[in-house]
């Protein structure tokens, strides 16, 4: 019992257990929505929009401001982000790099719909044609007259000053690419004519939310047209767009983006392994490891419309030569990826036993059952593990008189025998120890320092003997699919689920379960729901379930210096 007390459940998990026996209603429960958000574009979103609008041959130079992760997602953190001076410098460099390519001789004929009367001077009408078209896609709505006239004037004045129409146009476009209209996804609320006193997102904000949710990019022309014609306000019009987008091959990009965020793949940017201990591990391996996991997921969930819970147990994956050499699996294809299926009871089943998860959640020179256990709880079960207390006496973990700690299990014994540590470590370490057959770089091993590794254990009441038993236990944890529904919704909405949305989320989880845990169907339900676009009104704002508050209630007293 101490164990469950120590875990802060994210909102909804407990409620599900209570509501589990109730019959499902036909219609989803009503919600009061949450606040509109102002989200900074992430680097992948930025890159994807540039590719969509100007083509994939345009390089996006420079580096991006780091993102903040909040409530388990960068998608939520982006609604807290702004831009620092140094970050804006970078946006400016990147914008000028892109704009110069767009107008260069290679691209101007295909990207600029007109030719200037004189290449060495301003041509406001040609500039306006190009800028209004690009602006609608970049700003995710038509430009206002004022916006357009400013940009046209900038292009013209610059062209005159520099004696070059294209240089002027480039300068103006660069200005648009650093504008807040482009860099921030600003949502706008309007009164909902179908619900007195309530608010919803306006048509363009709706299109934007939909498009980033399903495709991880800005709305395309068809979606913007639908928004402009008011089609997204009717159930059938919205449904038509959602169906079109879910049927598109671009859904995979959206699913990949979601999982990259949920799995914390941004962490790979700064991940390094000690090359003397893990000579095979390098940045190519870490890139391929992410690709392997994303291929496994999209193949299972999108291509085969499979059961979400099988991500923990699937024996099917994809390998290339490089990864094959680490997994010890022969790969016939010289280049590229080929499907691979592990035999039953192989310890490699599921994405937890892939290099991406194992290496990301380890120290540079060795594995960490604690970090892995914490990652599994936080990422897949939406459970927050409290911080360790201050002034911990680590002498107890490192009994210097007993140097015979060969395995992590023996080293970590002190964690769960010492009261102040046990509360939390008991929920992390046993879970992580189940993955100890894999070292920091994801390589398989049966011993550590010549002592055999034992991977049996228990997670939330389910016992297991080995790694394959462990992943089956995770597969069956009721917290996993509910966590997923919650994360996916929160990813799309750009905020944690609000208090008033708990019942709705529980309803969605039941629907998810009754339709075989199919992810595209869940995305369709969210994308066509009223709840997804509902905006809370000031005063009735329900607020969010505050994990921080409940965390404070479970935290261990941590006063130092006593």
């Amino acid at each position, binding site marked *: 019992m101490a164990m469950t007390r120590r875990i802060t459940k994210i909102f909804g998990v407990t409620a599900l257990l209570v509501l589990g026996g109730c019959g499902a209603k036909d219609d989803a429960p009503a919600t009061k929505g949450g606040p509109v958000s102002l989200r900074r574009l992430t680097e992948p979103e930025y890159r994807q929009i540039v590719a969509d609008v100007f083509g994939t041959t345009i390089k996006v130079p420079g580096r991006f401001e780091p993102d903040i992760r909040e409530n388990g997602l960068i998608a939520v953190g982006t609604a807290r982000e702004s831009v620092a001076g140094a970050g804006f410098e970078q946006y400016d460099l990147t914008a000028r790099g892109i704009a110069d390519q767009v107008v260069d001789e290679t691209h101007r004929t295909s990207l600029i719909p007109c030719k200037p009367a004189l290449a060495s001077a301003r041509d406001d009408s040609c500039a306006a044609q190009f800028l209004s078209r690009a602006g609608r896609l970049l700003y995710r709505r038509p430009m206002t007259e004022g916006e357009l006239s*400013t940009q046209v004037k900038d292009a013209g004045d610059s062209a005159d000053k520099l004696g070059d129409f294209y240089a002027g146009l480039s300068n103006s476009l660069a200005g648009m690419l*650093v504008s807040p209209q482009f860099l921030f996804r600003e949502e706008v609320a309007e009164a909902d004519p179908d619900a007195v006193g309530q608010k919803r997102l306006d048509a363009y904000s709706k299109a934007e939310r939909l498009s980033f949710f399903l495709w991880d990019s800005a709305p395309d022309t068809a979606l913007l047209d639908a928004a402009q014609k008011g089609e997204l306000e009717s159930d059938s019009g919205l449904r038509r767009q959602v169906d079109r987008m879910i049927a598109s091959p671009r859904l995979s990009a959206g699913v990949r983006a979601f999982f990259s965020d949920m799995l914390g793949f941004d962490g790979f940017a700064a991940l390094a392994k000690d090359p003397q201990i893990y000579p095979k591990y390098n940045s190519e391996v870490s890139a391929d490891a992410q690709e392997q996991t994303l291929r496994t997921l999209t193949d299972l969930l999108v291509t085969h419309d499979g059961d979400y819970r099988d991500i923990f147990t699937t024996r099917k994956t994809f390998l290339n030569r490089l990864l094959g050499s680490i997994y010890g699996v022969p790969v016939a294809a010289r280049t590229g990826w080929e499907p691979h299926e592990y035999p039953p009871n192989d310890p490699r089943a599921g994405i937890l036993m892939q290099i991406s998860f194992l290496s990301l959640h380890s*120290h540079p020179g060795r594995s960490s059952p604690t970090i892995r256990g914490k990652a599994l709880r936080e990422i897949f079960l939406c459970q927050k593990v409290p911080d360790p207390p201050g002034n911990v*006496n680590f002498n107890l973990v490192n009994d210097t008189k007993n140097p015979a700690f060969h395995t992590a299990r023996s080293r970590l014994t002190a964690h769960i025998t010492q009261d102040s540590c046990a509360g939390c470590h008991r929920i992390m370490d046993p879970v992580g120890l189940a993955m100890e057959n894999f070292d920091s770089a994801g390589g398989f091993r049966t011993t550590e320092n010549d002592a055999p590794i034992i991977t049996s254990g228990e997670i939330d009441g389910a016992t297991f003997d080995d790694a394959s038993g462990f992943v089956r236990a995770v597969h069956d944890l009721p917290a996993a699919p509910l966590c997923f529904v919650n994360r996916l919704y929160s990813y799309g909405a750009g905020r944690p689920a609000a208090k008033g949305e708990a019942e709705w989320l529980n309803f969605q989880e039941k629907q998810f379960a009754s339709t075989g845990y199919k992810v595209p169907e869940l995305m369709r339900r969210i994308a066509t729901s009223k709840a997804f676009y509902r905006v809370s009104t000031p005063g009735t704002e329900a607020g969010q379930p505050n994990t921080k508050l409940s965390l404070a209630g479970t935290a261990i007293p941590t006063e130092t210096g006593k």
Partner: protein
Amino acid sequence: MSAIANASRRTVLRGMMGGAAVTLGLPLLDCFLNANGTAMAATGAPLPVVFGTWFWGCGLNPGRWEPKTVGANYDMNIETAALQPYKSRINVISGMKVFLDGKGAKPHFTGEMAILTGDVPRETPNYASLDSIVADQIGTKTRFRSLEITGTGKPTDSLSRRSASVLNPAEISPAALYTRVFGPDFRDPNAADFKPDPRIMVRRSVLSGVTDQREALLRQVGSNDRVRLDEYFTAVRQLEQQLDLQLQKPAPLAACSSPAQPADAEIGTEIDNVVANHKLFAQILAHAAACDQTHVFNVVFGEATSPLRRAGSAMTHHILTHEEPMDDKLGYQPQATYFMGRIMESLAFYLQTLDSIKEGDGTLLDRTMLLAHSETGFAKIHALENIPMFIAGGAGGRIKTGLHVEATGEPVTRVGFTIQQALGVPVENWGTQSLNTSKPIGEIMI
């Protein structure tokens, strides 16, 4: 900066767009120096003060770094021996403590937050960092409000933040920092000729177009988002300011020269690699200050959960502080302590680099105030008391130096408060709850 001031500057610049003649109506910056390069020629005022932070993770060993004597004429202890040549220009501050007020301690995070933001956050930071407060006072007229670097490879390991939501990301590559400061956009103050670049004029004008929308856009959003959008516009304003400076002929600076351009270096956590990159960073940052490109810099030698490691070792500095057994004879953890030695040598190198830039009778170190500190008093137990802190450099004569100040469990915020007062920030007290203080460290104040 008021909206009206912005508008008038813009009007001037917009006017420039039309005519060919370049007559700048902008106020010139106060950086004309006298002949020997020690002071502004126009006013006789001394060269501006420079503020910096220099952070390392996982502290030092208690009892092995604090000087044995208090007050003046102290000697450095064993672990700080590398700093001995600079002792007359360093104040060692021991015995400072973080008060939690019942909030949880987040290991390796709480300490740095308390020292730099005056607050113990429950989750994420709540306030701007000390260097931003100082930069708003002393750094508003330079090309860069501040420059941040980190030695261990993650841009997010910066400890400099403009606000709760805006982190100033750190440069991780010396070559990238060089290009940013001394690349094509650098205007050498000692160059013979100067011609404003029309490409910069048009860029400046386009940014004015962005800024012009500020009021309208701020009106559209809710209050939290308004703060964030305003931070965005502050960032735009900083770039505008950079471009303004590039459109003016800079005043000559005797001590200014470009540092050597570093090659692309490997970035990582292996200690020799980190030390080598730190040397390159130190050179670039010192030259940037000498060339008046910035008045504020922030160095993270290694992040708080110190990832420093020796090649081939499974254990990082941080893991060693927790898991390496205490050597009974030595009384400390020898492998973890190895890293502390390398860190203190690097701090000494940093001071040496500042001191190597001669400006008239003094050096850049004389007009710099450097706060060097860690985040814990004893990493093994994440102790939040007796955190090692040093104030180095003469701060342009604004403080006394060469003292060991021994506090007895007083709030760490006294150090940040002292720095703010010494550097002219109009502040009466600083810090939240038990960390609030209105007591500067009297011993070092002038």
